[in-house]
């Protein structure tokens, strides 16, 4: 029996070999940029005249929100690649990215809510942006739950890929629906700092560094988790063979 036949696709093996070389560098640069960005932002930037020290929260909130969305986009692309090209690594990468995206969404939610507290006086407000992230969190939850619920790997990959596609359309719909839903309320309170919008360089630079750190952290984590998924899949296949032989 040909041992290599169990690595049913050359891709997983090459993926692991390639990432063996690439991963340490990505991880170290990510850690460096994160540390520099956050330390710089926390210790070495002034307060905003309107928002006081809470402006320091942007160094966490903005990158996390950015990654929350980008993670889902990456899952969408890899799901499409799976559907069209049937590359297993692609499906596994989507599965690997979901928990990372979910944690990013959670960070965005918590920091967003906390940031709003001095402005709104409550620890949560149904601001359209925050609400959209809450809905995104639920989409992540459902996606992960579906992967966990289905035993057959290929079936799970197919179903979650379709869910990701359909979910993306509805996530977009929800974004507009939520904006519509909340437009009647007190509007002055939405989180108004966006990168590049009248923001001084003194804030922008550490923010960009922090964003770069978050992006690389996401990449590093997805690489680690995809490698784990590849190994886990191989492990399941080997266990199944053992059971058949016994």
């Amino acid at each position, binding site marked *: 029996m040909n041992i290599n036949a169990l690595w049913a696709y050359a891709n997983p093996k090459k993926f692991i070999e390639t990432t063996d070389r690439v991963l340490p560098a990505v991880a170290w640069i990510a850690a460096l940029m994160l540390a520099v960005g956050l330390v710089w932002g926390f210790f070495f930037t002034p307060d905003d005249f309107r928002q006081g020290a809470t402006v320091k929260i942007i160094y966490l909130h903005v990158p996390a929100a950015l990654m929350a969305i980008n993670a889902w986009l990456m899952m969408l692309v890899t799901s499409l690649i799976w559907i069209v090209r049937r590359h297993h690594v692609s499906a596994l990468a989507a599965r690997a990215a979901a928990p990372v995206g979910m944690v990013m969404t959670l960070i965005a939610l918590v920091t967003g809510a906390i940031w709003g507290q001095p402005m709104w006086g409550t620890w949560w407000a149904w601001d359209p942006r925050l609400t959209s992230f809450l*809905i995104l969190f*639920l*989409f992540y*939850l*459902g996606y992960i*739950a*579906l992967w966990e*619920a*289905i035993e057959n790997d290929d*079936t799970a990959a*197919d*179903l979650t890929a*379709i*869910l990701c*596609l*359909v*979910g993306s359309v*509805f996530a977009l*719909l*929800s974004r*507009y*629906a*939520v904006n*519509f*839903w909340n437009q009647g309320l007190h509007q002055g309170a939405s989180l108004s700092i966006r990168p590049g919008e009248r923001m001084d360089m003194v804030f922008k630079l550490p923010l960009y560094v922090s964003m770069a750190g978050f992006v690389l952290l996401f990449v590093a984590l997805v690489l680690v988790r995809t490698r784990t998924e590849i190994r886990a899949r191989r492990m399941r296949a080997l266990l199944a063979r053992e059971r058949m032989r016994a």
Partner: protein
Amino acid sequence: MIALLARDLRLAMRAGGGFGLGLAFFLIVVVLVPFGVGPQSALLSTIAPGILWLGALLACLLSLDRILALDWEDGSLDLLATSPLPMEGIVSVKALAHWLTTGLPLVLAAPVLGILLNLPASGFGWLVASLALGTPALSVIGTFGAALTVGLKRGGLLLSLLVLPLYMPTLIFGAEVARRGAEGLAPGTPLALLAGITCGTIALLPFASAAVLKVNLR
């Protein structure tokens, strides 16, 4: 496909078919609300459109796994898959059967329950209109969710987790129509958006549901 529809309707109507359970649940939820929030008429009037929409939505949700699970268990789904009917047609018929036996009764019951919640007079018409436009979307989306979880034992909770976020746009616009109608404002925009969502889902989602079922029937 008409035969399939007739069969599904007959099955739903039989004892144990689940017809009427959705209505009963709707009633119970509406009755529970005043116990939860207090009986002040003004408060109930304000929240009535939203509660009625929520109750209808939850009642729909509860009957979703019946759409496909029974046929899956006894093998009829496999048979249907091998028939000359396209899978997209099959799932559409299933959704239609669900709407006729669950959604439509809820639409008709809503005004009656609206009385219990002191729904303002101007709200009744728009409530019915929004539910009539929105519940078909709930059935079609629900069929998609049912297809995803059809093979799973005790997939009910997962089904809810998957479907409820997909229900949100319909709920937002539907409840907005009902609320504006109750307050005497013009509901044109949300009505159009609600209709758009329903038409879009009816036209496109069956393709996704069919793909999902084919995967599960492999």
